[in-house]
């Protein structure tokens, strides 16, 4: 399996706050890498750096062997290969579900509108949202909105899907319908990087779990290793707190 994403000594700070401290990470094709850690540990920043929403201060990021941290690279072209799903859905409220999904395929990827719509309908059918195609996002539940957001990022066949705490804004009942999509995608072999607080879910889908703390990966390994048998004192402490909060 080839390396889809490779981060080498990535460093990022906001003002005087060091958020990513020479962090390195490799993501192989068809694997799911789960980032865990307390709020502010750098999970979101890491995803935003990969998507070039933030410019890194040092280090290198490679996508399929091409350095995307190169200032001469076309940012739009890189983003076309990446899918990103946000914590707060970020659907366009003035467009219907179908229009949300087909916007990028039609405008960015130059796919014929009819074809884009057909492909979108296939995805909507697969995830049980066919009847919502012509509705506006405001009419949908949080879980439905987030599922649409995932479909929207899938519609352009990304090389990697970046998922930033996609269930944090949802109530527990709705969480599962969103996570089951991610499970399906994992089954299909989609390469993913996820930041999440759902430890049970992490155990199910992760090929590798990384525990972030103060901008560093303190511990990494299989879910069994990191979540069931953590070595680092800080990982243990974090998992204990998560457990107490009833999320494990």
């Amino acid at each position, binding site marked *: 399996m080839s390396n889809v994403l490779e981060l080498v000594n990535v460093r990022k700070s906001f003002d*005087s706050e*060091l*958020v990513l*401290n020479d962090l390195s990470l490799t993501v192989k094709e068809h694997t799911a890498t789960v980032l865990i850690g307390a709020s502010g540990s750098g999970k979101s920043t890491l995803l935003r750096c990969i998507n070039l929403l933030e410019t890194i*201060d*040092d*280090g290198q990021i490679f996508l399929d062997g091409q350095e995307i941290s190169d*200032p001469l690279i076309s940012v739009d072209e890189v983003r076309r290969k990446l899918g990103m799903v946000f914590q*707060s859905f970020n659907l366009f409220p003035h467009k219907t579900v179908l229009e949300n999904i087909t916007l990028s395929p039609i405008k960015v990827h130059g796919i014929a509108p009819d074809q884009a719509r057909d492909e979108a309908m296939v995805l909507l059918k697969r995830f049980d949202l066919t009847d919502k195609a012509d509705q506006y996002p405001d009419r949908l539940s949080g879980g439905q909105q987030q599922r649409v957001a995932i479909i929207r990022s899938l519609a352009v066949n990304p090389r990697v899907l970046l998922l930033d705490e996609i269930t944090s804004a949802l109530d527990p009942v709705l969480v599962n319908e969103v996570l089951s999509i991610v499970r399906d995608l994992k089954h299909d072999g989609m390469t993913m990087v996820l930041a999440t607080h759902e430890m049970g879910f992490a155990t199910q889908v992760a090929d590798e779990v990384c525990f972030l703390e103060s901008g560093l990966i303190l511990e990494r390994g299989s879910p069994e290793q990191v979540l069931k048998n953590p070595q680092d004192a800080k990982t243990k402490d974090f998992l204990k707190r998560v457990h107490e909060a009833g999320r494990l």
Partner: protein
Amino acid sequence: MLNGPDQQAWSPSSRELQRRNVRRQISRKQFTIAGISSVLVLGALYTLIITSPGWQVVKETFFDLDYGREVLPTVLRGLVVNIQLSFIGGFFIAVIALSLALIRTTKSPALTPFRFLATAYVDIFRGAPLLLIILLVGFGVPALRLAGLTSNVIVLGTVAVVLTYSAYVAEVIRSGIMSIHPSQRAAARSLGLTSGQTMRFVVLPQAIKRVIPPLLNDFVSLLKDTGLVSILGVTDAVRAAQINASRTFNYTPYVVSAILFLLITIPLTRYIDRVIRRSTAKQNSEGAI
């Protein structure tokens, strides 16, 4: 998170230094392109004007430096009238416009006739040209010969401007009120606030904050449009320039007056831009691209 020694000890890698070099090159290149394109466009414009057949005449009648200096104090005194008019008018506009906006957004059945009147008011004064309103008020009201009614042109001019601008501003405020998501109202009402309290403490503060940029924009327009009251004979900056220009057939006073207006409106618009930038930056701290 990690501050202090670790942060200071870090020095950029050779790759990062190389990257900064490339970024510097890119920005230098962009700077050069901006420079060349500016010189080309502005140069072409300059040559076009300078080589135009009438330039010599225009230069003498519009850009006479000595004459400009001579009329400056008169025009400046006129400008003070414009500024006074804007601020006094601005105060009344704010009060009337807010009342109109509130009346138009309220759903109270008792206020139905007022809602109807407010709508009619806005329709009329927003729809009719300001110049016509100034003429009608300025010459129509004194013609009524009602006792106690003033025939002071400055007051009448201000009234006309206030009538028109309060209709504009009322619509801006109303659009701000309508743009507040209904969930905010629901949240406030669920806490037991009355509809009046909801408006006063929850909706209006958010709405006003949202419409401050367009309101400041309207203030700049107001400042310029006060020049229109000169047709009533008010000696404002425009009128002062007109008097001087028609005396000597040299139009430099107009240019002087235009420059004086710009000296106020340009800094004001820059200030507005900054206000807009700051308020959007504060509200979108998360999720900025």
